[in-house]
């Protein structure tokens, strides 16, 4: 791969997360470098989504901190995270079902729309120009994700695979620096998985977006990731390139079980 991987942009430091007596995460540390595709894998209940939710500000870690672009946080709220340039998609689709594809993706531009409410309502002057500029950007994303034919369809009526793309599109509309993908390929067939992999790699290539992704499917992960973190029962058991991880004894045990 010819792309240039930069410095550490996101650094997770000694994160622990407990819900009452349940330890979801124990002392997890790893970092993400600029422009890389970083995967978090692990069996069911390993704490992958919890990890993502900590980065995204949905959960507050019990211990530890997260460094993003030189600033350290022990707690972030979702809005701050969005403002700093971290976008996410959801494992169980969380789209605005009653709204059209275009409107869904336009909501991703929300933080960037600056013009006055009344000018927007009347569609005059700078507000009109601004709306058009954002609309153009959104059309670009729609082309990119190859969902032109469904632009005006209410999202709730689209098949699952396409809804996943809209979810990705909405996140892309935020022009994020880091994109968190929570099982972008869950429940897809092989063909849909290949499409989605291609989109993820293209986003990474074309926009230089750093990608953190959670995935179940080992094959896909190994193909598209630069580095992989492996979690099991809330602990980190492996970290490295796909090849290193594949040959890691502990990882093999976690996935295949131990022989007794």
């Amino acid at each position, binding site marked *: 791969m010819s792309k240039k991987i930069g410095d550490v942009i996101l650094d997770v430091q000694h994160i622990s997360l407990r819900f009452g007596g349940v330890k979801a995460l124990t002392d997890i540390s790893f970092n993400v470098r600029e422009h890389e595709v970083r995967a978090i894998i692990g069996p069911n209940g390993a704490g992958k989504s919890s990890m993502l939710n900590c980065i995204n500000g*949905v959960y507050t870690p019990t211990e530890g901190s997260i460094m993003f672009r030189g600033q350290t946080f022990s707690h972030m709220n979702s809005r701050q995270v969005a403002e700093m340039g971290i976008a996410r998609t959801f494992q169980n689709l969380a789209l*605005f079902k009653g709204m059209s594809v275009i409107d869904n993706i*336009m*909501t991703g531009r929300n933080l960037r729309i600056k013009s006055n409410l009344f000018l927007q309502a009347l569609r005059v002057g700078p507000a009109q120009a601004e709306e058009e500029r954002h609309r153009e950007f959104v059309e670009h994303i729609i082309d990119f994700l190859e969902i032109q034919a469904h632009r005006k369809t209410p999202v709730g009526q689209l098949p699952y695979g396409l809804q996943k793309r809209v979810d990705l599109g909405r996140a892309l509309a935020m022009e994020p620096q880091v994109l968190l993908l929570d099982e972008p390929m869950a429940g897809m067939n092989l063909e849909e998985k290949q499409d989605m992999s291609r989109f993820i790699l293209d986003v990474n290539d074309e926009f230089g977006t750093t990608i953190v992704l959670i995935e179940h499917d080992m094959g896909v992960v190994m193909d598209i990731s630069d580095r992989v973190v492996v979690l099991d029962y809330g602990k980190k058991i492996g970290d490295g390139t796909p090849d290193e991880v594949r040959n890691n004894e502990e990882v093999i045990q976690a996935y295949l079980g131990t022989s007794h």
Partner: protein
Amino acid sequence: MAFFLETLFGGLMAGMLYSLVALGFVLIFKASGVFNFAQGAMVLVAALAMARFSEWFPMWFGFENMFLANLLAFAAATVFMFLLAWLIERLVLRHLVNQEGVTLLMATLGITYFIDGFGQTIFGSDIYKIDVGMPKEPIFVLDSIFEGGVLVNQEDVVAAVIAALLVAALSLFFQKTATGRALRAVADDHQAAQSIGIPLNRIWVIVWCVAGITALVAGIIWGSKLGVQFSLTTVALRALPVIILGGLTSVPGAIIGGLIIGVGEKLSEVYLGPLVGGGIEIWFAYMLALVFLLFRPQGLFGEKIIDRV
């Protein structure tokens, strides 16, 4: 024929007033997925604020001009409703983010009782009047076509125009602005809305402010017609069949639903009433709502809910 038209007009105008209240429900439901039980209480408290402020201001500041008093009272009542919206978000809704719809519904039920009591504590619980100078005397139109003409209540016409303007402004706001889009987004999914940086708390305050304004307008119009009294809260009950008919999520639905119910009530009372001994007006709306619930639960303009199995 002239009598029929008169009844029809009367029904349309009454319907417009139902629509105004129904609008408040629809706005909050559309924008936050909350069925706001407190809408009726908000209409009452808004009307109370308007009535008392317009009475108090001339007393406190020693002037006589009714127009000025009404203007100031309207401004003060608006501020009051905004404050109420802010408090509701701060003290109640903020703590219920990501909860089930039913939890939020129960919360608004609580808010209803609070507003009822609180409003009457500060503003008093007698019958007050609002006089914003709406023309009272009826006029006769179309007297070239029908003998004696058709009697139309001017007050109703003014109310209808105001309601129409309000609806136009709201539609623009919801469909054409980024804030409107954010409102619709929040209604669909709290968590996803937060993840793209939509500030849930601010959105909720905005929605409740808008619903507060609608309640104020409805309160002023109803109040100047019927007088401001506790029974105004029951106006909200009249609006329930309207939103079932029109669809919970549709602004035009609220309007058309209101008109259908207004007209239906009056016409059935006049033409069918004598056959069954009258009193149709009281239950007509609920009966119609029941029929709709059976055959078209999403209402005329509501979104059909399709669940994937």
